[in-house]
């Protein structure tokens, strides 16, 4: 693991002068799927926002594809190829599915084969192509959020709790789609509370607790860890 796509070193971030994430270091290799698992409030979202420029980190560095992206603005980081799908999705509610997807390709015009790729990954979006995003169900919105992120052909897809608000059935469908994307060679960093799903998808993982990385290992090692089993897998 010498060729890191993303390398985060000593990252701290928080709100109103109080850090929520403390001295976090992690890396994602090209083609890897890495999970960050932790309970609600462990600091996963804050960490992701600080990595992708939506929030200023109080310390630490973010290196992506050998370029220093520390303190770069969010839109510049997206254009560098690191695309973040937040748990709140942030879709454009009064625009059609197709327009939402088109914006994913910004500043370029959307290419037909990209839209086709997204529609193949999420056939439901094709059926809803002209519908306004704000009128869709939670599961469909999640598909659209991931689809929109894919439109820029990202080098790294960062997903924050892609199962938020989804029924168990829809959640496993979402992970089935992510498994397909992984097979396409996409590099993914996913934060998740639903630990069995995340560890089923990932190659490696980090356990985040109270804003610190408590444990790291392969997905299998984490799944076998007694602490993880007790805290997150309920066994």
């Amino acid at each position: 693991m010498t060729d890191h796509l993303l390398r985060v070193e000593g990252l701290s971030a928080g709100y109103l002068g109080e850090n929520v994430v403390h001295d976090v270091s992690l890396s994602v290799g090209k083609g890897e799927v890495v999970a960050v698992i932790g309970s609600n409030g462990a600091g996963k979202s804050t960490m992701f926002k600080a990595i992708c420029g939506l929030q200023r980190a109080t310390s630490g560095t973010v290196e992506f594809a050998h370029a220093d992206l520390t303190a770069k603005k969010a839109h510049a980081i997206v254009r560098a190829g690191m695309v973040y799908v937040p748990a709140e999705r942030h879709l454009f509610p009064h625009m059609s599915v197709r327009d939402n997807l088109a914006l994913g390709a910004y500043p370029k015009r959307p290419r037909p084969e990209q839209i086709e790729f997204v529609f193949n990954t999420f056939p439901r979006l094709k059926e809803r192509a002209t519908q306004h995003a704000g009128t869709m169900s939670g599961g469909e919105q999640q598909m659209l959020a991931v689809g929109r992120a894919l439109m820029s052909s990202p080098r790294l897809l960062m997903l924050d709790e892609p199962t938020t608000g989804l029924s168990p059935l829809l959640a496993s469908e979402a992970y089935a789609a992510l498994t397909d994307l992984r097979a396409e060679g996409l590099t993914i960093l996913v934060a998740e509370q639903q630990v069995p799903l995340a560890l089923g998808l990932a190659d490696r993982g980090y356990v985040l607790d109270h804003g610190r990385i408590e444990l790291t290992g392969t997905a299998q090692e984490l799944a076998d860890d007694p602490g993880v089993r007790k805290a997150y897998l309920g066994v």
Partner: protein
Amino acid sequence: MTAVVLDGIVLGLQFAILGAGLTLVYGLGGVVNLAHGQMAVFSAIVIARLIDHGVSTFLAVMIGIAAVGVLGLLIDLSLMKPVYRQKGESRVLLGLLLMLGVGFIIDGVLEWKYPIEALTIRISGDPIPILGVNMRRGSLIASGIIVVVGASLVLFFRFTTFGRATRSVIQDERGARLCGVNPATVRTVIFGLSGVLAGVVAVTRAMSTPVVSTAGVDLTIFALIVAVVGGLGSVSGSFFAGILLGIVNTFSAFYIGTYITTIVLLLAAALTIVLRPSGLLGEKP
């Protein structure tokens, strides 16, 4: 009766383009541009001065519209920077106060330097009968220009990459940033565009009524009312509301009296806020 409606539509189209300029800037960055009408008058006086100095009307109009567009860009790049760093209410208040100040400055300078200057663009020729009503050529040409400008705006926001990016910032700024859109760039360009639209207001209005150097405040108030009724951030909403309010205006002026019109329009805005806070076609949640 038909004449009142037609006059209302002509006036309403001017309202529409006024409202569109204001609504875009507000929808994007939360700045209520209380100098919007004054920017239109600034453009009118630039054009009038150029014509006085022997520049051809067409060239003067082009320069005047470009000048107010540049004024918009400069305001965004200078005064508005600290505004955009604020969030929520303090952003709205700071933007409102600073633009109020800009309005006072433009008003003051124009009144001091050119107190009796006014822009009138004469369109010669006989009136043209429409539905049995003789309409002045100036009004018709002005309306035609506004329809073309309005249609171009709607197409721009619907079908171009930058237009879509603009709407994305209006609907969800964070979502826009996550798509690689830089909201600061969008805001600057649209503030400039808003200035150009103010210039279009000045020119089209001058085809039927003299635009005097003190007209700014009234135009700003009309812009504000149309933007509220149409829905903040929506160009098509501005057009819808503008025409509706134009007709309401001429009706109340015709059947009650001109003294009542502004009150009726303000009432329409107040009612909209109570009944439909996002406006008739608002894109802001």
